[in-house]
């Protein structure tokens, strides 16, 4: 295992070393010591690496991740795994706002709570949150799934496109054009698979499903009051 201590090296040193693995992968396992909430840790990875960040991470940790498996052994700041393409990002603690924003693929697991706008504009990523999510989560979400094992804040799924949302706890309010939908067998199957992939032990039957009513997909003046 390759170890980089950020008390001795810079974030630039860390990212450059990780990026160099994209050409010829000689070291698959990495640990990052003393991250102390620094920003932009392990972003732009493009190789099947395993990166363990032993502490708290700042903004945009694992941003635009591709193929790599990044674990934050602490809390993560704003925009963790933003625009992720593939791979896995796991936050052992809580995540701040805009977790998984605009991400196109891969799996984001947050073992604690996520702040506001979790999964905003998500485009294919799967996000599993063991705790609660804040307001406006999944705003303009286009594709993928959001699983919330705790409660959801205000305006869940506002202006939603095709994201599947599963919530076990309460939902404070639904956003424009977001509705509760029937939980059919294929959804139980999908949710079961998501929970298994995330390593979360929950009963899929306890969840409710939410999605787009598709009433705002094309602009109609009769819907103006919904905007």
């Amino acid at each position, binding site marked *: 295992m390759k170890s980089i201590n950020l008390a001795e090296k810079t974030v630039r040193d860390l990212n450059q070393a990780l990026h160099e693995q994209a050409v010829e992968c000689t070291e698959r396992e990495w640990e990052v010591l003393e991250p102390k909430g620094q*920003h932009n840790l392990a972003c732009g990875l493009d190789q099947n690496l395993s990166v363990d960040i032993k502490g708290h991470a700042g903004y*945009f940790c694992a941003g*635009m991740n591709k193929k790599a498996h990044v674990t934050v052994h602490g809390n993560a700041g704003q925009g963790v795994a933003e625009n992720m393409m593939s791979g896995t990002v796991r936050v052992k603690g809580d995540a701040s706002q805009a977790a998984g924003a605009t991400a196109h693929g891969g799996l984001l697991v947050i073992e604690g709570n996520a702040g506001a706008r979790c999964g905003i504009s998500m485009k294919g990523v799967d996000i599993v949150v063991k705790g609660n999510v804040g307001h406006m989560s999944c705003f*303009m979400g286009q594709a993928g799934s959001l699983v919330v094992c705790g409660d959801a804040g205000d305006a869940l799924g506002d202006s939603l*496109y095709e994201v599947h949302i599963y919530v076990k706890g309460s939902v404070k309010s639904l956003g424009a054009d977001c509705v509760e939908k029937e939980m059919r067998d294929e959804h139980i199957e999908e949710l079961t698979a998501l929970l298994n992939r995330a390593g979360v032990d929950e009963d899929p039957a306890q969840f409710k499903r939410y999605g787009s009513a598709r009433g705002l*997909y094309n602009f109609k003046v009769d819907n103006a009051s919904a905007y």
Partner: protein
Amino acid sequence: MSEDINVKDGLRESATFDRTTMAEIRRAADTGIYDIRGFGAKRKLPHFDDLLFLGASMSRYPLEGYREKCNTSVTLGTRFAKKPIVLDIPVTIAGMSFGALSANAKEALGRGASLMGTSTTTGDGGMTPEERGQSSKLVYQYLPSRYGMNPDDLRKADAIEVVLGQGAKPGGGGMLLGQKITDRVAQMRTLPKGVDQRSACRHPDWTGPDDLAIKIQELREITDWQVPIYIKVGATRTYYDVKLAVKAGADVIVVDGMQGGTAATQDVFIEHVGIPTLAAIPQAVQALQEMGMHRKVQLIVSGGIRNGADVAKCMALGADAVAIGTAALVALGCNHPMYDEEFKKIGSAAGFYDDYHEGKDPAGISTQDPELMKRLDPVVAGRKLANYLNVLTLEAQTLARACGKNDLRNLEPEDLVALTVESAAMARVPLAGTTWIPGQQF
């Protein structure tokens, strides 16, 4: 008031409720929805035509046209990037999206720009292989919608432009209506075919300039600090926006004035939000100068640039380069009179067509209809764009030489005077024949 034969009969048109205004009221009453359209502002605004150059006579010494060199190259991104962009001419192609424009149009833009050694810019639809393939220098836009955004394309770019606003609609997002959403456009944007595509008005994962500084650092980290990072703002509170952009770490700042075009947004936005390009440049330059960053952080100006005089005037006011959008489309064939009959069939006319969002453009530029697209030959259209860019450059050089300058970037505000009080105040140059700059002591 417009000319009309009825004037002879003593009929008088209202200046407040003229025929255009009344037609819009009737349209609104019929449909119940505001007008969505493309193109830029159509109202008359203080513009570069309100400025004149003071050619050299006695107190200045001119350079010989056709003989003495006048440099046109400019290097962008000298602040932090390991690989700054070098443009042979200071005219670049502004961001316009695949989706709003056809693939052939995007390819033609790349071909034309490359022939002249300048850059072109992606847009809301992401990067197409045609565009990357034909653009020797390509700027990749990082937009609020993040449609088609991926790190592979980011690393293929020669520069990254973080778009915070657009001159046609500062504070607003776009709307690409469902009729233009083909399979390919839908796939690139991860949305169902035929669904309206709302381009967000703000970035989803940061909420202010302090966050932006970290976001820029992220983009630099992902690209190993290789390429310049631009920040594009719509011209509004330009002085403050430029200062914050410099503070956030921009290598290059793009200021887009309210005459800038768009693919589709509300008419009320295009005509009533933002400030004219002319008014924005001195604000941006002042901000850079006060920070000691003028020429260190390069300034690109866009919004209504039409000819070499506009280019030279922007540079005299302190820009390092200009960007063109609408003019580039016109060079490709947008609104061409050869399609006048077809424009009339869809309720418009050559020179007036602005319903880009409907996807029926007879010129094959702002459409995804495969039959209409075929009308635009990207090789021929690319050549036309290169010709036009060449003319812009030659015209700007001619004016610079007349002012005694052997480099376009040596043009200065002292080379300019204004024809109107308004333009003198906005451009901060004296009214012609006086030393008076409105708003400044004399």
